[in-house]
């Protein structure tokens, strides 16, 4: 059981690390949000599933409570994060930041 928890945490940490690397390597705000999305999806899913497995393997009332709370946190994270990312991207575009290295920008033609 411990091995499974370690594997889950390692995968989560790997994807979180790649997300952080994406912040350094990508050219502008939109592509960096793609990198950040990777953290919130696979990074947090695997880390939190690790916590859930730990909670259930501990057993009893406390472990179960921990697991259920972690699952709820994951649920709400996945529900609210895209809304925040969308607000950031829309705000950035309205604020006049053009996508860097863009091969096509339909929003510019579509709106103005």
């Amino acid at each position, binding site marked *: 059981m411990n091995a499974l928890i370690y594997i889950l945490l390692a995968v989560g940490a790997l994807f979180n690390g790649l997300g952080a690397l994406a912040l350094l390597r990508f050219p502008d705000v939109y592509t960096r949000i793609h*990198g950040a999305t990777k953290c919130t999806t696979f990074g947090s899913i695997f880390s939190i599933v690790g916590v859930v497995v730990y909670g259930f393997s501990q057993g009893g009332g406390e472990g179960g409570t921990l697991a259920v709370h972690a699952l709820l946190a994951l649920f709400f994270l996945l529900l609210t*994060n895209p809304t925040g990312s*969308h607000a950031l991207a829309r705000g950035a575009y309205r604020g006049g930041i053009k996508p860097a290295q863009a091969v096509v*920008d339909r929003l510019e033609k579509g709106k103005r």
Partner: protein
Amino acid sequence: MRRLAVWAATAVFALVVYLLLTMWTGTWGLWSLSELIAGAVMSCIVGAACGGLLWERGGWRMLMPHRWLLLVLYVGPLFVAMARANIDVAWRVITGNIRPGIVRFDPQLKTDLARTILANSITLTPGTLTVDVSEHSGAFYVHWINVTDDSPTPEQVCGGFPAWARRIAE
């Protein structure tokens, strides 16, 4: 009068969700008094804040129970798409091989809820990011990290998501 009914319905719905989440907190019953009071206050706030938005365009469709079942089933395909996109974007982070751009497509969804589900699914998948949704035409403006087509079909950008959003909320 109708507005009041809409607010009340939303507040009751929020209260039910709150009570389901905070079950078994009381010492003598299912809920403690403080939870009940906090839930009542919060659901009133939620009802006043979102009542006008929730039922405007087809929100009542979610009263059908089979739509909730579909919403739960949707986790499967969403997770598969998310896994594939995660590995794809992970590779792009390492190699730096990107071709970004904002593309436009029209998934032809009518209800607000279907658009919200689709926009959130697109943003949750690494590699695609909803920048804007046109209120009138329902067109999606999506920042795509690997543009293969300047005027793509919805399926090219986000696979089966539009079909699922239609199934759940239209």
